[in-house]
């Protein structure tokens, strides 16, 4: 099995290359099936790798070659599969496969069809390299490569100005996070003389806890960019400019969870610093709450789901921050399916409504597109945390984890976010599929999507409904046993140093997590069920039953400034515009352009040219054409050279 690992990322890369180079001359169906087949191959191999890991605690590794052999700085290119990676491989390849199939229907007839089917496998390749990495440089390579693919695919409709803007925004905002990540990696190399995970983790006791805190926070900066956490989440909602399958795959299921995966992979570093963990939990909780509240007021169906994604990424970050590692990955796992499905479902709606995304112009669609409606409803129930649906179990564990870590205030905020999750997603369901038909029947004829799109919806609906069983019974399910080894890798390296002591403290918390009392479990189940059903009920009363007490417009007016604040996304874009972009423009124009560029750089270049020109003009006169002058110059030159040589040799000058 180890020997075949390289095929997992290689197949999508090959498909991407072939489609990119020859795609223009191939039939659309050929490019699509080539891409889909390559992903299917990766998926099959990932399944095999996963099967291997099921009953083995020994990670699979494959050494491909030495990437950078430069003296002490030695970076091998190894593929590494342990339990954590195995789960990620499954998530990435399965959702990718479904999205590839779906895209064949969604993108049909698009002039950029072959381009789409070369970027999408390229993304899968990058994402697989990211999860298969065994050192910081390879993970950084995958990290940047998924960013590039995200940029390419957000800006896929490059003739649309807003798509270009959104692509640039995603790229630039991610750059801020990547700067932190890169700095963290440099710090790690400086402190540990290695960039290989296992070597770094084995040397943790060499440095102080403060250093580890700084490293962990820098890594979290990177994660905050990629996984859309608080100061940096503004790019994700705008990323909805890309085609909807891209939103499903990259901006919901896989790429945005890379930050969470990375933090989980850095488990020994992150868990060694309680300060860093608190910051992560705090940022995660605030992100979850803010994004959830914004989602309540948006009317673009994709934006609602985008903010929902941000909110759920906040849940995962919070889980990491409170040491509920397994719960974070569990939620990542279930979220990938139900959020991917929500996006694909919304894509199906948009497709059936002739590219209409505004929920105010939808309504009553469930009789036109029943498959889409049912699958969307399952995903929504999962997102809302209705009991028995997958999202319920994973989200609940995060909340329990927060409580056990004594972050009571933050956990209560998370309960608020969980309530919003239910409210906004059912608001979307009811506005889209129920109620009166608000579209113009003259021009819009809603229709169910072709089978190539509905079958993937059904395929994803199964895990979106049932993926929770891997976490049953709560806190002691299969996934807990499976992931335990991934979060105890350093057990044998214990002893010594404070870093490890604190790390073990964190471990005890994890242990506690496995002996949650039944009473507590039931209390939390009950609480979150009440909140989820409450959200559902309010959404129903407000948007279907039209109960006067829950009229959304009246509430919007009553809430006044709060509503405006939410509707305008906390004015974050405006604040950034004012505080960062405008000053940057000003500095760029008045200092960098008018002074540095024009005065200094152009001045230097032009100055050199002018000096040469002037001095040549002067020197021109030396060229007299009179032989005696040349001879004199030679003679004087010889005298000077010989004179200097003699003077240097003589001892007169000492």
């Amino acid at each position: 099995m180890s020997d075949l690992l390289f095929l997992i990322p290689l197949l999508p890369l090959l498909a991407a290359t072939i489609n990119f180079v020859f795609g223009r001359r191939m039939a659309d169906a050929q490019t699509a099936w080539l891409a889909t087949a390559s992903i299917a191959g990766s998926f099959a191999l990932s399944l095999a790798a996963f099967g291997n890991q099921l009953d083995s605690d020994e990670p699979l590794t494959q050494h491909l070659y030495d990437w950078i052999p430069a003296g002490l700085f030695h970076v091998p290119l190894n593929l590494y599969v342990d339990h954590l990676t195995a789960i990620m491989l499954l998530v990435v390849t399965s959702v990718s496969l479904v999205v590839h199939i779906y895209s064949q229907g969604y993108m049909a007839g698009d002039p950029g069809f072959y381009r789409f089917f070369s970027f999408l496998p390229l993304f899968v390749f990058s994402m697989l390299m990211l999860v298969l990495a065994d050192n910081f440089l390879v993970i950084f390579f995958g990290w940047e490569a998924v960013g590039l693919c995200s940029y390419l695919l957000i800006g896929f409709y490059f003739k649309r100005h807003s798509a270009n803007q959104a692509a640039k925004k995603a790229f630039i905002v991610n750059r801020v996070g990547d700067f932190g990540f890169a700095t963290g990696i440099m710090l790690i190399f400086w402190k540990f003389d290695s960039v290989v995970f296992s070597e770094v983790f084995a040397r943790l006791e060499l440095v102080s806890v403060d250093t580890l805190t700084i490293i962990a926070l820098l890594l979290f900066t990177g994660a905050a960019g990629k996984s859309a956490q608080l100061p940096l989440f503004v790019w994700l909602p705008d990323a909805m400019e890309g085609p909807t399958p891209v939103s499903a795959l990259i901006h919901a299921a896989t790429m945005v969870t890379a930050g969470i995966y990375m933090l989980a992979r850095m488990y020994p570093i992150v868990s060694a610093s309680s300060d860093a963990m608190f910051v992560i939990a705090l940022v995660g909780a605030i992100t979850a709450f803010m994004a959830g509240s914004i989602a309540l007021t948006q009317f673009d169906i994709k934006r609602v789901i985008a903010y929902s994604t941000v909110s759920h990424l906040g849940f995962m970050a919070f889980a990491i921050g409170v040491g509920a590692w397994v719960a974070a990955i569990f939620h990542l796992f279930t979220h990938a399916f139900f959020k991917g499905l929500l996006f694909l479902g919304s894509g199906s709606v948009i497709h059936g409504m002739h590219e209409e995304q505004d929920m105010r112009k939808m309504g009553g669609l469930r009789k036109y597109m029943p498959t889409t409606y049912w699958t969307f409803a399952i995903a929504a129930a999962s997102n809302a945390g209705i009991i028995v649906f997958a999202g319920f179990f994973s989200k609940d564990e995060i909340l329990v984890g927060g409580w056990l870590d004594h972050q009571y205030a933050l956990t209560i905020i998370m309960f608020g976010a969980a309530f919003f999750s239910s409210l906004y997603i059912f608001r979307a369901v009811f506005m889209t599929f129920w109620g009166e038909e608000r579209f113009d029947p003259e021009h819009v004829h809603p229709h169910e999507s072709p089978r190539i799109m509905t079958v993937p919806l059904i395929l994803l609906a199964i895990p979106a409904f049932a993926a929770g069983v891997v976490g049953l019974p709560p806190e002691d399910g299969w996934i807990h046993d499976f992931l335990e080894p991934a979060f105890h890798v350093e057990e044998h390296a214990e002893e010594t140093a404070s870093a490890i002591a604190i790390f073990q403290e964190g471990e005890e918390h994890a242990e506690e997590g496995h002996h949650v009392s039944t009473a507590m479990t039931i209390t939390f189940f009950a609480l979150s069920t009440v909140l989820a059903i409450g959200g559902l009920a309010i959404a129903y009363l407000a948007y279907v039953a039209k109960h006067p007490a829950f009229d959304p417009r009246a509430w919007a007016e009553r809430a006044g400034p709060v509503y405006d604040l939410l509707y305008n996304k906390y004015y974050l874009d405006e604040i950034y515009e004012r505080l960062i972009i405008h000053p940057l423009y000003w500095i760029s124009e008045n200092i960098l352009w008018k002074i540095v560029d024009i005065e200094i750089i152009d001045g230097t270049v032009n100055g050199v040219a002018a000096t040469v020109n002037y001095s040549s003009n002067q020197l021109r006169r030396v060229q007299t054409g009179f032989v005696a002058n040349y001879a004199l110059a030679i003679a004087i030159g010889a005298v000077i050279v010989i004179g200097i040589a003699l003077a240097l040799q003589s001892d007169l000058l000492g």
Partner: protein
Amino acid sequence: MEELTATHFLLLSAALFIIGMMGVLTRRNVIVIFMSVELMINGVNVALIGFAWEQNSMVGQSFALFVIAVAAAESIVGLGIIMALQRRIDTIDVADVRQLRE
């Protein structure tokens, strides 16, 4: 009467060389310049022979012979150039041969 030393040779050599050089620098007639160049060459020859004499070595002597031979060849080429100059622009005054100035 003083004994003959290398210094005497060198003084003579330097004198010949400088006289020749002054000729090259100041005269305008190409033939005279040419003669001055010959003078400089012979100044160098004197220095070579002086050292050879002092060190009792034949190397300098034979070198001087070489220089004479090369100078002979060079004067043929030079005279050829002078002939060409005379035929072409009807003068051998270097002050008039300034076509290569800027």
